[in-house]
């Protein structure tokens, strides 16, 4: 009897497709790594410039993490204890840098902090020396721009998780000021800050686009950028391979530490809930909070506002190449999103079963993997077989999908578990396990999360300036690459217009998919 062989405790969904997808991801990440390692020549140690790149990578990541978190603490504190019009909007805006294309943000930062930017104009007018955005400061500035919001959200979450009873008790006992900090806020920060530091540090380690545009040169090259240079400029594959191994070790260790230390992912909802507070009502406290909130809002919004001002005029007469690049980007993002869902949905289904651990490992591996390492490995694998340049777009779509996978799994995982737990038995008792359950229950129930994950994936892919730089020849470009080329050619008007277009496409893709997922979705 065929039924005898089956495991008796039934499952609504088979974990096998998800485990298969996870194995493919593992194979891609480890296979490209092996391809790279085999290529690295033994005995050739690290050169002076390699060590400099390693050192710069660590220094900028530490600085970025410390600054982002140090600035995030007062901002989060102010947001936690004030209620004002636009508070919810500002908190939502803090989530936006995640889908903001790096190159767009850099363009905005250049408008404000660049040589001919607003800040230097102001300084010259006041008779002060100007600031320089290129090099270490620029890299750290851009990283703080991206990670201050994330750190603020992570720390704000800590503040919101303090039970309101504790504030009520403090108010009842008339605890304020330093005692409040010591009794309630410091213990919370001690729990939350290490995780936030580790997350920002890990993110900044694999910084490529920021270093490519604002860094460079022997004193401001990250390991990722050094891989690119070894590959693209010197075509020194062995050195690229060696650097790839270093990068993988760095991000792997940092990702494990970050996962250990961090609890929330900063994407959680409920952050716009305002706690009722009875302390911090004095004018000094109110003034400081207002100042921090204003500064943070200006820091985040000015670069984008300047971009809109400068780019709006240029959008209408953008060169044809930009429109063609935009079309390419839309295509790459669509394919990447489709690939992402083909991996993430079955993997989420597998996560909901007892074999979830395996899939989780693949997700974590995706966090540690570096797109340039995967790109280098794929190049080495493809080169004997075909012209790697012809594969630039498919490879970009694939690598983007793998990079978005850990986030997608975090979004889908809890909802997948919940759906299988709540409706699995019912589905089985109706004899609709497997494909019918997948199409009629699992996917419809997960639609809001799938939409959100697809939106993130599409926006990330649309704005990605990473592996495409390794592969693309002069004839092909995604929109971020085209924008980078325009900036390199000092066509700043056109670059600003392209930036605006890219911004609109990224946010538009996210909005459509996220909205589409939640459209008519029942709780």
């Amino acid at each position: 009897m065929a039924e005898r062989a089956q495991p008796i405790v039934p499952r609504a969904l088979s974990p096998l497709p998800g485990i298969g997808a996870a194995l493919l991801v593992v194979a891609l990440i480890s296979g490209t790594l092996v391809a790279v390692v085999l290529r690295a020549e033994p005995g050739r140690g690290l050169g002076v410039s390699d060590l400099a790149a390693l050192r710069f990578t660590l220094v900028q990541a530490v600085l970025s993490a410390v600054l982002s978190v140090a600035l995030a603490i007062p901002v989060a504190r102010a947001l936690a204890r004030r209620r004002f019009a636009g508070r919810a909007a500002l908190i939502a805006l803090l989530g936006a840098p995640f889908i903001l294309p790096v190159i767009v943000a850099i363009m905005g930062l250049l408008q404000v902090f660049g040589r001919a930017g607003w800040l230097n104009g102001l300084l010259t007018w006041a008779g002060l020396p100007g600031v320089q955005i290129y090099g270490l400061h620029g890299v750290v500035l851009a990283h703080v721009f991206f990670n201050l919001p994330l750190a603020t959200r992570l720390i704000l979450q800590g503040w919101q998780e303090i039970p309101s009873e504790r504030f009520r008790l403090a108010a009842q006992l008339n605890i304020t000021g330093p005692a409040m900090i010591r009794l309630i806020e410091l213990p919370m920060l001690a729990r939350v800050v290490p995780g936030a530091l580790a997350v920002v540090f890990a993110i900044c380690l694999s910084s490529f686009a920021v270093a490519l545009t604002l860094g460079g040169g022997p004193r401001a090259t990250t390991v990722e950028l050094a891989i690119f240079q070894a590959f693209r400029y010197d075509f020194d594959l062995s050195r690229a391979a060696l650097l790839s191994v270093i990068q993988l070790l760095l991000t792997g260790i940092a990702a494990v530490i970050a996962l250990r230390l961090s609890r929330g992912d900063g994407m959680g909802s409920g952050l716009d809930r305002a706690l009722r507070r009875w302390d911090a009502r004095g004018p000094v406290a109110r003034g400081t909070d207002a100042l921090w909130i204003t500064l943070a809002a200006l820091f985040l919004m000015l670069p984008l506002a300047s971009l809109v001002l400068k780019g709006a005029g240029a959008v209408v007469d953008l060169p044809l190449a930009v429109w063609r690049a935009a079309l390419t980007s839309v295509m790459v993002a669509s394919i990447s999103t489709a690939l992402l869902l083909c991996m993430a949905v079955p993997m989420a289904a597998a996560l909901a079963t007892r074999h979830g651990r395996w899939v989780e490992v693949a997700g974590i591996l995706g966090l540690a993997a570096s797109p340039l390492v995967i790109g280098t490995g794929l190049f080495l694998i493809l080169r004997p077989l075909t012209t790697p340049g012809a594969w630039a777009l498919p490879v970009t779509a694939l690598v983007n999908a793998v990079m978005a996978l850990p986030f997608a799994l975090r979004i889908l995982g809890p909802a997948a578990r919940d759906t299988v737990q709540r409706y699995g038995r019912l589905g089985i008792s109706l004899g609709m396990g497997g494909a019918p359950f997948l199409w009629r229950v699992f996917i419809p129930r997960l639609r809001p999360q799938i939409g959100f994950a697809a939106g993130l994936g599409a926006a990330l892919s649309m704005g990605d300036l990473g592996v495409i730089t390794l592969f693309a020849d002069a004839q092909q470009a995604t929109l971020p690459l085209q924008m980078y080329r325009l900036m390199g050619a000092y066509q700043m008007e056109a670059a600003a217009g392209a930036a605006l277009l890219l911004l609109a496409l990224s946010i538009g893709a996210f909005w459509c998919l996220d909205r589409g997922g939640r459209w008519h979705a029942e709780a």
Partner: protein
Amino acid sequence: MLKLENCTVGSADFALHADLEIAQGARVAVIGPSGAGKTTLIEAIAGFRDVTQGRITWQNVDLTRMPPGQRPVAMLFQDGNLFPHLTAAQNVALGLHARRRLSPDETAQVQDALARVGLSGMGARKPAALSGGQQSRVALARVLVQRREVLLLDEPFAALGPALKAEMLDLVADLLAETGTTLLMVSHDPADARRIADQTVLVIEGRALPPQDTATLLDNPPAALRAYLGETP
């Protein structure tokens, strides 16, 4: 006849033993203290728990290793009996099969079932637009189209008020009388057992005892049951 032949259900830390027979068409209440294994018993019959020893048969067909969806058994759970994203009619139709398309004949079956539970014209509503009692009726309509020979209820009406629960139990009794279905119903309320079940399986200290006459059992409860029921059975 449903037979549990010398069955052991469960894991190392909790096991339920059952050796009993239930006649076709019987209405049986399953009562006992919480944690004694009432739900375990029902879930073993439905196929959600491993039977580590012994076997379960229905009309001499061995069910022990049959997947839940293939057993001649329909089950209603304590909650989550409907898919919230599907309409009432779609939920009922799942009792026939999981395909989206229904033949005209199948559509008529679904409509008939909805009409039978008093929900004519409400097929297009989603569960959120129905009251708790109406949601239970949709689940019962699905049981009707499933046409399984055994119905297992795991306190599916526990969240309803007393009057509504009595109404649902009467509806269940009517449907059973029409279809000749065998019923096993977990309940913690002896009044439920008296209302609908002529026989009762007492589950106590990890043992499911053979069915006894409900009225006799509840009028002269053994010590362990008396402790559970309190002074006013």
